[in-house]
């Protein structure tokens, strides 16, 4: 089974072979990946080198925390990867944009109102979480289309707070 594996701007072609081996480019390695305690923690031996990694899957990508560094790894079937890439190129951001809560928290203030013009960097919402205030700012210029939260609301991470257009 061959995969196209992308980490940052590097892409590897990795073949997973049936007998606990992988081929990366011209090199073949003996590998052994063991789950520790059925969690996100894995012990990985590659040719007798011992590594430990926390691996989480998020939106189809793998977040690999290894030796204090976080790698975002995308794994695709080697054949399909080209098609996917083409499809992705077609997708474009629309004019309307939902501003999401970057963390769970309590809304302290929403210093904008619907219809208001805002500029990139303007504060849209002030969220309190873990006793710290955090300002959610406009990522680009635009107009506030909808304000979906108000002071003292509790919001989840990823919840849409304000819609810009």
């Amino acid at each position, binding site marked *: *089974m061959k*995969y196209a*594996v992308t*980490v*940052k701007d*590097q892409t*590897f072609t*990795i073949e*997973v072979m049936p007998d606990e081996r*992988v081929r*990366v480019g011209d090199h073949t*390695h003996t*590998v052994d*990946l063991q789950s520790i*305690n059925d*969690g*996100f*923690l*894995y012990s*990985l031996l*590659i040719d007798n*080198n011992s*590594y*430990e*990694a*926390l*691996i989480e*899957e998020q939106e189809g990508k*793998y977040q*690999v*925390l*290894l*030796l*204090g*560094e*976080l*790698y975002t*790894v995308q*794994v695709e079937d080697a054949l399909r990867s080209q098609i996917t890439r083409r499809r992705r190129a077609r997708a474009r951001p629309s004019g309307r944009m939902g501003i999401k809560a*970057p*963390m*769970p*928290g*309590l809304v*302290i*203030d929403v210093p904008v109102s619907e219809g208001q013009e805002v500029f990139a960097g303007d504060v849209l919402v*002030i969220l*309190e*979480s*873990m*006793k*710290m*205030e*955090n*300002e959610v700012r406009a990522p680009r210029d635009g107009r506030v289309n909808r304000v979906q939260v108000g002071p003292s609301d509790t919001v989840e*991470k990823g919840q849409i707070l304000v819609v810009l257009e």
Partner: protein
Amino acid sequence: MKKVLVANRGEIAVRVLRACRELGLQTVAVYSDVDRNALHVRYADEAYPIGPASARESYLCIDRIIEAAELSGADAIHPGYGFLAEQSEFAQACRDAGLIFVGPRPETLAMAGDKAVARRIMREVGVPIIKGTDKELSDEDLVAAAHRIGTPLKIKPAAGGGGKGMRTLYRLQDLNEVLSAARREAEAAFGDGTLYLEKMMEDARHIEFQILADHHGNTIHLGERECSIQRRHQKVIEEAPSRAITPELRQRMGEMAVRVAKTADYTNAGTVEFLLDKEGNFYFLEMNCRLQVEHPITEMITGVDIVKEQLRVASGRKLRYRQEDIQQRGWALECRILAEDPYDDFMPSTGRITGLHEPTGPGVRVDSGIYEGFDISLYYDSLIAKLAVWGETRGEALLRMRRALEEYRVMGVRTNIPFHQQILNDTRFIGGQIDTTFLESGFSMAEEDNPNDVEVAAIAAVLLAHRQRQRTLSIIKPQEDQSQSNWRRRGRWEAVRR
């Protein structure tokens, strides 16, 4: 003193409970609704609910805490740090209820607690201070003062501590916005929006001295801690001793710290914070009238259990140490472990701890408020644990800290452990060339990667992806569905149990 109520939560509540237990004192915990299963409730002999999750309605409620103390028959209250620790009203309420407050007198808290007033008093007895304001001022007067002092300057809450609510101002035109944000945050964190200004010193180190004082006029210091590694005015890594302090300077600064404490008629444990410039001049910043987050590193190099000494002193005993008994040995470092994502702009991270493996072994101390299965909520501070190490030398301590950080595994929430690892790999940090701007000037999460590690990460991900795909294709599809519905059912069961 027989029974102590700990008016706090998290790692510091656990720290104080441990000290009480080791002194044979009975212990009482208080908890908000979301903290029923928190470690401090589990470790205490008794536990009293004091209200909903919001700290304003629980851990900051003086009445409910005093009531819990009376119900339980506690005769003393230890406030930990944060929450009510430095509120003179709370110390006064304890006194009124006939309870021992494990901390300074209410009068001392009232004076030292207003950092602006404290600046004035210290200046008057010859303690050097930084240019700034030293009384409560209206926004208008603050604006005028800011123009007089000039930028860059620091805006600080008079009632603050722990770096909360501090702001740095570089451009005077941002002053109004920054003032109102700082006031709001100070109000939220300390129930007091008073602010003061201080000229920002560049290239300076944050050096603080640990003080112990009894009710018999004895005041000593336990040497310094270096806390220059700060992010958004929050200390991130502390060490003791400091590379910048010679024995001669230690003696001079220590004597000044003792003078500050005596001027404030201080009792119990406290900390005097200074800024130290490159020329060896030092300036009083503020007095922290409570146990400090980073007290473990002082304990590690002096052998003094500061919390036990707090309890002894509060019960009226004399200090067990004279100044000359305090001998430093070796070097200690502390990393604050925070539930925040260093790869996503240090956003707070909440959720259930699904896996936890804390480092242990020689020279390693963990003060933790979490356990596997505990839920990190958004209601409280993101400090979930403190990792401290001791070594014979700074070099040994650094290497040991790296080793301990490598062993640390927290699953379920993101932590700043990788951030610590990168600081500990920074050549300036290793060389001890640090000041309070260290993290803001020229330090960032590494972009450069070891090519071998990139390949390892790729192999790890591909093996997991391959395994998941095999599972989906063959046997395991039904299993996964099953386990999901199982979760849902467990959720329902939990709801029924309550």
